[in-house]
């Protein structure tokens, strides 16, 4: 969920600016200025990183890829034009422009080549780029990578079956090549406690210990060398900022500013090379580390981890002994948050659409239990929430972990923020997450130390992902299955030969369908093995490897399986649509025998043209997931159980666990566009159900029934994350009591029913307007009216207008 589609759609630039207006009024002037600046800045491209990495690869053809990339990164950080603005107290930017994207042509170059001309003109997420930059990019960078990027290599090695499935969008291979790159449990604490000098020393010592007869000697040596070079790169950048701050101090506009610049100079001289001592040093160290990481990955989703755990000691000691006030700390934290909004990603257009307006997600995790199993919420957790409320920006994305003993005040602060219209955060159930990881074999401490990595994907301690490495389009698989392996619409690629799905009982039908699903899953796992092999060979990541537990000990890059633990996630898309469709087939073909399967297939192939009566009946008279009807809920549960069993049979290329996810970002919209009509009455091309949720509009019995349906699924088996996004109108949160009722609903869903994730979209005016135009898609939109929650679409026009007027008021509150 997405951290989800509807949430993300609220972050178009114009909306950001209006959000700016809506934010709290008492921001300090410097914060208000910086916030405003990042909101209004156009998206630009920084070529430095792509240029230097390309050069390093060209100039060192014989050196291992890890060294080439580390050298390129170090050089980029040495050459990047730098500046410190008058308002900044934390220095650093990942590119030379206010809001920019760096490019990673070695990962995937085809779309850059194809879309270069369009960056400035496309419908959404435009980027400015000068003609000279275009020329350089085309002639000096992309020409070199043409057909040579890791993605090209990966696809050229895939089987015909995989090409067929990918071309028909029955599956999507991401695995850090495209789109989401949910990473790892990054050890920021290591940077704060040892500094990059400590990391270099550690690598050197490990290198010295390699046995002379170690068969992996060469590989280990170049791994440690790459870690050292990458670490030096980050230290080098910090010292450039230190020098710049020092030099700027003399020309500062005021005495105070001169003093601040001297402080920045001192801080950057120290961190992240050496351990941090103060809160400001800690923030500076994390930020520069982030910039380093952003140079060597697709950079889209770099998790910030449990900031309230690793920053708290610095905050506390500064407040207790260092004379730091809470409001000073808040201001620094707000500046820290703003910085992440300067980092953007230039994505492939198709992928951009999937991300629906939000291309980069840097997620921080708050609350939850500590490694000892006790509540770890602290004063900094509250400070971090307050800063979120003040900033209301798209980054960082905020994940809150809750457990039955979370402090009442923290739950309240969280639910207040979830319901106040900011739509900026989501919550996770520790009980389910911790059980999910231990069930897969993670030790309890690592399981308790999980972080969220971009959307809804957890990563336990000492673990490398990616939890979002492929999507399987459930409804498309059903379409193929019902049609002998051939797509019913937009046929591309070869036909597969599947036996006829005709069966004498639903059990037999379901058995054949899951056999087919198994074969798709197995093919996807094979495809990801190939992808991981390419990742290992062409895309090692020395800077990230330096920060993930296990790599130094193993002498291996994360891409070679160096992390202590590994996992790869595969998402099932459209479980609601799929379960409803299977339930419909079960009911009308096998239970009630009103129609035979051929008839149903005929309706679907025709896109229900000429069969509106049948379609209406399917839509309105059959069980639907989201209404707590076991007839269909059990099917959703069974599919999850089945996929979990299949995934458990194998290990990943890096000897990690395969895990199942149920989240969709905006894939359910974009992939739905090429899925034929479905037996649940969904017309051809319509969006699929999102995340773990019901088909939009089909949960007719209100939020509690919808949650009970979703809770049928065993989420300890969905460790790659299951998104549950609910849409509410602000009128449902009109007073403190109703926010309290929402908190009760959340706690019930989590701690009594076993839910994993919850996010609330407080439906804005735009949504309400759309609901007026397409009431059939908004049957689940509840508003508060006449003493109870009513469906928005059932209201008369004037009342709808009234609600819209009211929601506009409340949304800014």
């Amino acid at each position, binding site marked *: 969920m997405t951290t989800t589609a509807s949430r993300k759609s609220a972050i178009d630039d114009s909306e950001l600016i209006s959000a700016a207006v809506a934010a709290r009024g008492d921001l300090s002037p410097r914060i208000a200025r910086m916030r405003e600046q990042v909101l209004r800045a156009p998206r630009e491209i920084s070529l430095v990183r792509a240029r230097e990495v390309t050069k390093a690869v060209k100039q060192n053809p014989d050196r291992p890829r890890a060294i080439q990339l580390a050298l390129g990164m170090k050089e980029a950080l040495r050459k990047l034009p730098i500046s410190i603005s008058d308002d900044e107290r934390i220095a650093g930017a990942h590119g030379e422009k206010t809001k920019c994207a760096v490019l990673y042509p070695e990962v995937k170059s085809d779309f850059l080549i194809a879309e270069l001309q369009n960056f400035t003109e496309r419908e959404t997420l435009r980027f400015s780029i000068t003609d000279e930059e275009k020329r350089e990019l085309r002639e000096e960078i992309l020409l070199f990578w043409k057909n040579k990027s890791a993605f090209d290599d990966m696809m050229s090695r895939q089987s015909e079956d995989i090409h067929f499935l990918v071309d028909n969008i029955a599956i999507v291979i991401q695995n850090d090549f495209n789109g989401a790159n949910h990473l790892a449990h990054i050890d920021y604490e290591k940077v704060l406690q040892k500094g990059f000098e400590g990391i270099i020393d550690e690598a050197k010592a490990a290198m010295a210990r390699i046995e002379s007869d170690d068969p992996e000697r060469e590989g280990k040596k170049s791994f440690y060398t790459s870690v050292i070079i990458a670490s030096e790169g980050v230290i080098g950048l910090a010292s450039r900022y230190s020098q710049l701050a020092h030099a700027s101090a003399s020309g500062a506009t005021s005495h105070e500013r001169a003093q601040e610049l001297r402080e920045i100079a001192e801080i950057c001289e120290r961190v992240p090379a050496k351990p941090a001592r103060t809160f400001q040093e800690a923030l500076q160290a994390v930020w520069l580390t982030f910039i380093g990481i952003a140079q060597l990955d697709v950079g889209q989703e770099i998790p910030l981890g449990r900031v309230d755990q690793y920053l708290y000691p610095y905050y506390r000691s500064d407040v207790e002994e260092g004379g730091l006030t809470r409001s000073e700390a808040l201001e620094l934290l707000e500046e820290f948050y703003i910085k992440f909004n300067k980092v953007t990603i230039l994505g492939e257009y198709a992928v951009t659409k999937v991300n629906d307006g939000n291309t980069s997600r840097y997620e921080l995790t708050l609350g939850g239990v500590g490694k000892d199993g006790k509540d770890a919420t602290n004063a900094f957790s509250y400070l971090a929430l307050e800063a979120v409320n003040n900033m209301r920006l798209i980054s960082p994305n905020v994940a809150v972990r809750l457990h039955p003993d979370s402090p009442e005040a923290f739950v309240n602060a969280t639910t207040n923020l979830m319901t106040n219209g900011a739509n900026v955060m989501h919550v996770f159930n520790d009980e389910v997450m911790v059980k999910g990881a231990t069930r897969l074999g993670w030790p309890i401490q690592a399981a308790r130390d999980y972080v969220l990595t971009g959307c809804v994907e957890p990563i336990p301690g000492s673990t490398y992902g990616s939890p979002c490495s492929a999507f399987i389009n459930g409804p498309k698989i059903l379409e193929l299955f019902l049609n002998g392996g051939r797509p019913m619409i937009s046929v591309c690629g070869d036909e597969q030969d599947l036996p006829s799905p005709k069966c004498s009982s639903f059990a037999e039908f379901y058995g054949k369908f899951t056999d087919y699903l198994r074969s798709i899953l197995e093919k996807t796992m094979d495809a990801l093995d190939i992808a991981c092999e390419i990742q290992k060979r062409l895309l090692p990541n020395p800077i990230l490897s330096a920060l993930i537990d296990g790599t130094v000990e193993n002498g291996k890059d994360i891409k070679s399986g160096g992390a202590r633990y590994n996992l790869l996630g595969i998402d099932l898309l459209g479980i609601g649509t799929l379960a409803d469709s299977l339930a419909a087939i079960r009911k009308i073909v096998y239970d009630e025998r009103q129609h035979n399967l051929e008839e149903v297939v005929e309706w679907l192939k025709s896109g229900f043209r000429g069969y*509106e*009566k*049948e*379609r*209406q*009946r399917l*839509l*309105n*008279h059959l069980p639907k997931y989201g209404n*707590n009807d076991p007839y269909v809920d059990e099917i959703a549960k069974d599919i999850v159980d089945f996929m979990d069993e299949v995934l458990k049979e194998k290990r990943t290329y890096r000897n990690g666990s395969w895990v199942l996810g149920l989240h969709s970002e905006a894939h359910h919209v974009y992939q739905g566009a090429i899925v034929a009509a479905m037996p649940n009455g969904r017309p051809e091309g319509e969006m699929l159900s999102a995340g773990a949720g019901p088909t939009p509009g089909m949960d007719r*019995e*209100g*939020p*509690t*029934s919808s949650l*009970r349906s979703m809770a049928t699924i065993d989420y300890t088996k969905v460790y790659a994350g299951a998104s549950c996004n609910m849409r509410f109108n602000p009128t*449902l949160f*009109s*007073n403190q*009591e*109703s926010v*309290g*009722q929402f908190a*009760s*609903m959340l*706690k*019930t869903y989590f*701690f*009594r*029913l076993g839910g994993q994730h919850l996010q609330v979209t407080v439906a804005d005016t735009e949504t309400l307007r759309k609901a007026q135009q397409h009431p059939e898609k908004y049957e689940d939109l*509840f508003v*508060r*009216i*006449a*003493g*109870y*929650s*009513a469906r928005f679409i*059932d*209201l*008369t026009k*004037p*009342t709808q207008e*009234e609600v819209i*007027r*009211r929601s506009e*008021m*409340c949304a800014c509150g």
Partner: protein
Amino acid sequence: MDVHPENDMTGLVLDIQRYSLDDGPGIRTTVFLKGCPLSCRWCQNPESISPAPEIGFRAERCIGCRTCQKACPADAIMFDNADRIDRGRCTACGACAEGCPSRAMFAVGKRYSISKLLEEVKRDAAFYEESGGGVTLSGGEPTLQFDFTLAFLKACKEAGLNTAIETNGLAASDNLRKLLPYLDRIYFDLKIINSVEHQRLTGADNRQILENARMLVECRAPVDFRLPVVPSMTANKANISEIGVFLKKVGVREIGLCPYHENWVTKLSWLGRRDSPPAELQKPLTSEELLSVIDMFSQEGINARSVEGEIAAR
């Protein structure tokens, strides 16, 4: 608990509303029973008034397949009729609603046995437990199906559920007393004190209602009074001051306000009714009107607050 089959009578249920927020503490499920002895001009649930099942028709959902016509045993479906259903012939048998693929035809009122209804409301038990919520019986007027109401409340109590009722107060006092042991909260509508006006606008005399109100306070029942705030009809200076006087006389200082919404006007056409309500009932109550009612109450020394939450200044 198991409901004994012999006691498993049925009641006519209009609707079951989950995640109700304003019908008592916590997360609640509100069960609307069909049938009401009053017929208030402003009634926001006109489909709840008749104690018999009815058929509704939403023209905008109809795809014209005529399944309903084929299904109707009474030949009551008229495609050239503006209302589609010849209400004189229709026996409300429900066959059309069952057959209608798009739910354009729908049954208004469905029979539930005590055990089935209990099962329905118990599905949200986890939410009630966490939030301190439960079940609220509303209507129509739930006491009109008195035996069913009593049996259902008993069953809820035996199942350990928190219970509340919303009543217009027009019931035999003895009946209300019999319900008391099974109720945690009573929301009692006070509409109009002047008996002539009450008769004119609700179609019934209010003596019994006021007597019940006094009786409940006297026997210390957990009663909360509520006023449907209807422009001019109930929300006028004279009525509010009379309500204030009445409340003070019985020793109550608080009242909940239920703002009027005109949403129901569309529902008339679903039921085939061609009448249209007076202009003042065709628009929602404004915040200003609501605030002025609160103000009038406070002049009477009565603390009034909207049951829908804080009122946004507009």
